[in-house]
């Protein structure tokens, strides 16, 4: 009985195990809140496109579809590198490659903004504003999470790699929803 009591007191003295679910829950709250925000913005863009089809036609003429395709391919390729890092294939170089892909996406988007700016600046109405808001907000996400990928690549711990890769895939997924709504619609 003494042995049992002693054993129990030793158990009590050990630090409590780190709750695994807490961080994960926060991560999924972040993922879903981002999805809901972008979903609402994309829904508003769809409605504005139906209300004002002539403005949508002008906007579509200003957009560079091949450049958007190249940017999509760049982002998807960087997502593949992030996945490889998550599954333990050379995490550091793969995370750096994923971040570089993200920065290349940003460069392509900035180039396309340069082409689109004169036409969009001359447009009235809410549609160009929504376009800037959605694509600019997404660009800010790519820049921020790209920087996070580099920070995690500095000392890649498996859990942190998995977390940052999940957020990176969220950024990928949002772009895959932006593409049909804004560029292909």
């Amino acid at each position, binding site marked *: 009985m003494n042995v049992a009591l002693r054993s129990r007191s030793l158990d009590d003295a050990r630090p409590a195990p780190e709750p695994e679910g807490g961080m994960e829950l926060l991560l999924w709250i972040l993922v879903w809140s981002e*999805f809901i925000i972008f979903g609402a913005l994309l*829904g508003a863009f769809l409605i504005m496109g*139906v209300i004002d089809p002539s403005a949508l036609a002008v906007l579509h003429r200003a957009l560079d579809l091949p450049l958007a395709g190249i940017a999509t391919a760049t982002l*998807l390729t960087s997502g593949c590198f992030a996945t490889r890092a998550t599954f333990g294939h050379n995490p550091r170089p793969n995370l750096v490659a994923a971040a570089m892909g993200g920065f290349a996406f940003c460069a392509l988007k900035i180039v396309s903004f340069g082409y689109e700016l004169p036409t969009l600046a001359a447009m009235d109405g809410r549609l160009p504003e929504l376009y800037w808001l959605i694509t600019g907000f997404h660009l800010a996400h790519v820049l921020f999470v790209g920087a996070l990928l580099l920070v995690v690549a500095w000392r890649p711990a498996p859990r942190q790699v998995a977390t940052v890769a999940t957020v990176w*895939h969220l950024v*990928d997924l949002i772009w*895959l929803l932006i593409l*049909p709504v804004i560029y*292909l*619609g």
Partner: protein
Amino acid sequence: MQLSRDIPFPAILLALLLATGASLLAAAAFAPGPRGVAIAMLSLTKAALVVLGFMRLHRESPTLATALIGYAALLCMLTGIKIALVG
């Protein structure tokens, strides 16, 4: 939901790139009706490939994976309907 278990990442990436190319082609070449259907289906395929192929979320939580794909399906369906009806 277990389909992607053994599919290598480069094959998933290739499928994603092909689907992207196909959706750009559909946007340029199809009439509004088939364009809406094609773009919605291809966009949903890409979203599902990212969730099941890259994130492999179905291994940890099939509910979350289904919810993410369902949300993407809703947005893709609305986009497809809008393209098919309005152009």
